[in-house]
């Protein structure tokens, strides 16, 4: 349980001789000591996500001797995860992240009691899962789950150790402490779907989640031990390219429906709140977007019936390419719309079909009627048309 140094010591579990030796470097730290290590052993920490942020969190909190760790994830280890998700290894590709995590955590510290939840976190199950924990750590990859985690933590009075990342930059804070602000005080509403690219779309420096997740682990341990100055009330901004760390103030908003007025008394529909049809960073496909399969597109392209517009970034074109394309990065599409032919069938293409779906919507909004999205992007093109090229 979370205790603070000014509170009287409570019944804490004893340490075995093996544990005393294992945690020696903690025990000789004046601010941790035997009592602090026993607090860690008594603590129950829930990690949401076993991905980029969840990896260092699970490894360091296990190694530090947090007695009970819960892990929520329903994903499978993919080869593209391994560049940053150090909890999983090459031999784990294709298996459940929870299975992989259990194996690795047991090797790091067999004293950790691990509970896994192989489910998507939802408004229906979140309170039931969270209520058994002292601290929740948010390592998810999408806005609906971040608001869900926040609201559930506020409703239950459980601190939420927050971290999020994009490309080379990260953010971390501690929300929903007794008198502190919450995520909604910082961001009252989410951005519209598609405005902020996910890591799967925009890329992420592999060590960045290591850095941010390790900061979250540090904040978690400080909360358990009741030492130091928590990030509650502050937002840490990390810029790896500028090599800068900066903190700004996060004030508790008296009008916040979650932690201020407390008009939010139950969990809501977070997909609807965030305006997105699906959970998951790489899966945001919209309705009413005409699609064409790679096989059909290849056949029509060979007959000269369609033009393919590749909306990927220039550096991606070097990795794998479509034949005979017009390359227009998504960010420049608006500026080049006037140059695109309205009297031709245009097929918009990208890596997996997410960005090109946005491009189709953009062209539809500009009055184009003969536009299609290439289903599955270059990944499916490689599967079905041109297996000589690498996927990325």
């Amino acid at each position, binding site marked *: 349980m979370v205790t603070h140094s000014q509170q009287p010591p409570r019944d804490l579990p004893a340490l075995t001789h093996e544990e005393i030796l294992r945690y020696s470097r903690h025990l000789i730290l004046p601010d941790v000591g035997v009592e602090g290590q026993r607090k860690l052993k008594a603590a129950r920490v829930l990690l949401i996500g076993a991905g980029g942020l969840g990896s260092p969190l699970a490894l360091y909190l296990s190694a530090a001797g947090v007695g009970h760790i819960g892990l929520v994830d329903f994903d499978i280890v993919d080869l593209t995860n391994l560049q940053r998700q150090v909890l999983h290894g090459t031999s784990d590709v294709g298996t459940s992240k929870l299975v992989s995590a259990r194996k690795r955590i047991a090797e790091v510290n067999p004293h950790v009691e691990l509970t896994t939840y192989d489910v998507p976190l939802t408004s229906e199950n979140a309170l039931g899962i969270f209520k058994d924990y002292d601290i929740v750590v*948010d390592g998810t990859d999408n806005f609906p789950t971040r608001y869900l985690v926040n609201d559930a933590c506020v409703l239950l009075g459980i601190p939420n150790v927050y971290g999020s990342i994009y490309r080379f930059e990260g*953010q971390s804070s501690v929300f929903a402490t007794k008198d502190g602000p919450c995520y909604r005080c910082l961001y009252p509403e989410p951005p519209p779907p598609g405005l*902020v690219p996910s890591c799967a779309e*925009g890329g992420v420096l592999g060590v960045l*989640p290591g850095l941010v997740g390790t900061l979250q682990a540090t904040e978690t341990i400080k909360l358990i031990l009741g030492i130091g100055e928590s990030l509650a009330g502050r937002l840490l901004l990390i810029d790896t390219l500028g090599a800068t760390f900066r903190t700004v*103030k996060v004030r508790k908003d008296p009008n916040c429906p979650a932690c201020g007025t407390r008009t939010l008394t139950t969990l809501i529909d977070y997909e609807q709140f965030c305006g997105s049809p699906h959970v998951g960073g790489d899966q945001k496909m919209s309705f009413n977007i005409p699609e064409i399969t790679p096989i059909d597109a290849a056949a029509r392209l060979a007959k000269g019936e369609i033009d393919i517009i590749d909306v990927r970034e220039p550096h991606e074109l070097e990795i794998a390419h479509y034949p005979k394309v017009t390359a227009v990065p998504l960010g420049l599409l608006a500026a080049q719309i006037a140059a695109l032919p309205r009297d031709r069938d245009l097929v918009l293409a990208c890596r997996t079909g997410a960005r090109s779906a946005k491009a189709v919507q953009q062209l539809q909004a500009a009055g184009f009627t003969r536009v299609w999205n290439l289903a599955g992007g270059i990944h499916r093109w490689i599967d079905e048309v041109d297996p000589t090229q690498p996927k990325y």
Partner: protein
Amino acid sequence: MPATLFLPAILAKLADAKQLEVTGATVGELVADVSARYPALEPRLRDASGEPYPYVTFYLNDEDIRFHGGFAATVNEGDELTVVPAIAGG
């Protein structure tokens, strides 16, 4: 008042810089100044009615402008305005 605007990477590409010198008596005027110079940035900083978005937080030095009058917050010479949009990667 001259001030320094700091942009995150996701917005810096629209202004070709992470750090810009801007001028104005209020935060709203600083945003108007940079929007006039980099029109592609404008819709990422303020909505069609010229107001800030709930998912893009502006910090004047280390204070959230929402608690200091929003875009009407007064700027002093040498202030730093940092734009912190919501990100969700993990």
